[in-house]
């Protein structure tokens, strides 16, 4: 409904004002989000970056010290452990999730009865909090009462599975729990990819006598390259951001054997009164994530635009 003002004096003013309001309204509606993004995302990134170049310890100070805080971070043995752990965890987490996800998706793609139920079973860990996952696995991996005891009761009396309290092995328990949680998600991505593949090519190959494993290896899996790319990007950035799971599962221990950059950042910021070092480690985390996500988002958005949107 158009409001038509028939009052003699205001005939010009009111419609013009309402028309102008209509013109500005969309931008007005979007502006709070833009403002919020500018302040709480980009502004805060700048703020933290600035802090990382200052002498700040217990509270922010404005004395600039260049890259000193970064040098101090890199001089910490704890940071080296965190980086080393991130490398082990990241590589194994991404690789095993991809392998299991693809395997489960291909198995489910064989016209399986109860496919929906199985899918739901593989995917439900994704709905849980990392803290719940960590709590559950901490209990299962308990050396005295968990899986170790179970296998011993089954007859293998010398069985030993104490990774969670073993400095050298604890990081692998994080891998186990994280893979359990995320592999179903990768399965869903691959399954969607598989369902998008043109069946005619597969039928043709099958008529030509190619066996199904060969069809998968030669024809289907190569076509899933975009899914591989998306999965690797998503998983890698999740690996860098991992925090809750380690806190709940090992608390970073034993000692700081399962520390990750995220735990390092939290400890130095909130419990060790080293704001500058906390900020410096956060900036390095952001740069690593950005190095992965920005090219990906850029190519996706460009691709979508070229695709007609």
């Amino acid at each position, binding site marked *: 409904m158009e409001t038509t003002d028939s009052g003699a004096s205001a005939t010009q003013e009111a419609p013009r004002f309402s028309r102008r309001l209509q013109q500005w309204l969309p931008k007005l*509606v979007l502006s709070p989000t*833009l403002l919020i993004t500018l302040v709480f*995302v980009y502004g805060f990134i700048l703020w933290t970056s600035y802090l990382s170049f200052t002498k700040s310890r217990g509270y922010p100070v404005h004395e600039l010290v260049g890259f000193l805080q970064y040098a101090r971070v890199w001089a910490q043995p704890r940071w080296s452990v965190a980086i080393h752990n991130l490398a082990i965890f990241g590589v194994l987490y991404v690789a095993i999730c991809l392998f299991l996800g693809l395997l489960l998706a291909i198995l489910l793609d064989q016209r*399986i009865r109860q*496919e929906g139920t199985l899918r739901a079973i593989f*995917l*439900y860990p994704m709905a849980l909090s990392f803290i719940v996952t960590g709590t*559950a696995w901490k209990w299962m991996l308990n050396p005295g*009462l968990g899986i170790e005891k179970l296998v011993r009761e089954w007859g293998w009396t010398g069985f030993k599975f104490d990774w969670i309290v073993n400095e050298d092995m604890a990081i692998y328990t994080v891998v186990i729990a994280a893979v359990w949680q995320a592999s179903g998600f990768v399965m869903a991505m691959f399954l969607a990819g598989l369902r998008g593949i043109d069946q005619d090519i597969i039928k043709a190959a099958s008529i030509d006598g190619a066996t199904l494993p060969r069809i998968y290896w030669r024809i289907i899996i190569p076509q899933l390259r975009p899914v591989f790319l998306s999965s690797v990007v998503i998983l890698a950035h999740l690996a860098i951001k991992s925090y809750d799971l380690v806190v709940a599962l090992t608390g970073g221990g034993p000692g700081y054997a399962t520390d990750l950059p995220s735990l390092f950042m939290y400890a130095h910021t909130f419990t060790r009164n080293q704001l500058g070092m906390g900020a410096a480690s956060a900036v390095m985390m952001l740069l690593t994530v950005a190095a992965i996500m920005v090219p990906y988002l850029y190519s996706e958005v460009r691709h*979508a635009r070229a695709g007609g949107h």
Partner: protein
Amino acid sequence: MPEPAGIDSRPTGDTTMQQHWDTPEMAQGKGSLRSRVVIYGLLGFFALVYLLPLIVMVLTSFKPLSEIYAGNIVALPKQWTVEPWVSAWETACVGLSCNGIKGYFWNSTKMTVLAVILSTLIGLLNGYVLTKWKFKGANVLFGLILFGCFIPFQIVLIPMAAFLGKVGIASSTAGLVFVHTVYGLCFTTLYARNYYIAFPDELVKSAMIDGARFFNIFWRILLPNSGPIIIVTVIWQFTNIWNDFLFGASFSTGESAPMTVALNNVVNTSTGERPYNVHMAAAMIAAFPTLLVYIFGGRYFVRGLMAGSVKG
């Protein structure tokens, strides 16, 4: 952006998908009996492995502590008891106070409901503006907003702690609602924008010609057709916010903590013999809301997951 192909014939409502998937002529699913047995065997094995932690949690939470120390993790309780659940809810110790997790459960409920409603509403409006009232630079702005979804939140912790303190909502549910709304907007905007982009412009244009206004069009034309995307967004936000730990741990103290923080404290509060059954009951209570959402809205949960990762 085309919505990613569904994992079954249902989600897109696209009939070509239905014709493609699961036709009798397909090569898949035609193997020998032996290969069928192997496939089902593998799937059954993996299903068991994935279910194991949940089974262990449930069994442990219904056992008396004596059975836990005497038996193994998959043994059925000889004597079923709800005592651990009652104790987790009413008397478990979270740090120094031993009033159970009930208060924290309600903290999380309040926080989640409010933040979900706020972020979803704003996200829908943003999506509407970004697709139906496009202006120069809209795509760049969208890209800027989108990046916010992927930052490691460690980068905002220090300034946000200072900000919440200055504004006077530090260590309160209000503060956490604010934080979750702010950092949820990019996802809700992403979902709404990618959904509305496929909504026919003609309907909006003809309504404009008929003289309908900005909010009228949104209210009368887009919103009634937004059912699926509202469900996807609400489920995504609900799961994310309920499950959050980092913001909860950073911006709350004591009584104002959300459920996840309380659970972590329950597990790490050790006085003598550890009540593992109470820990598991508390974990089940913390998992309950999101599991419930998953069971009833699983289809939409999956769509949210995919739309949040395979984007464009």
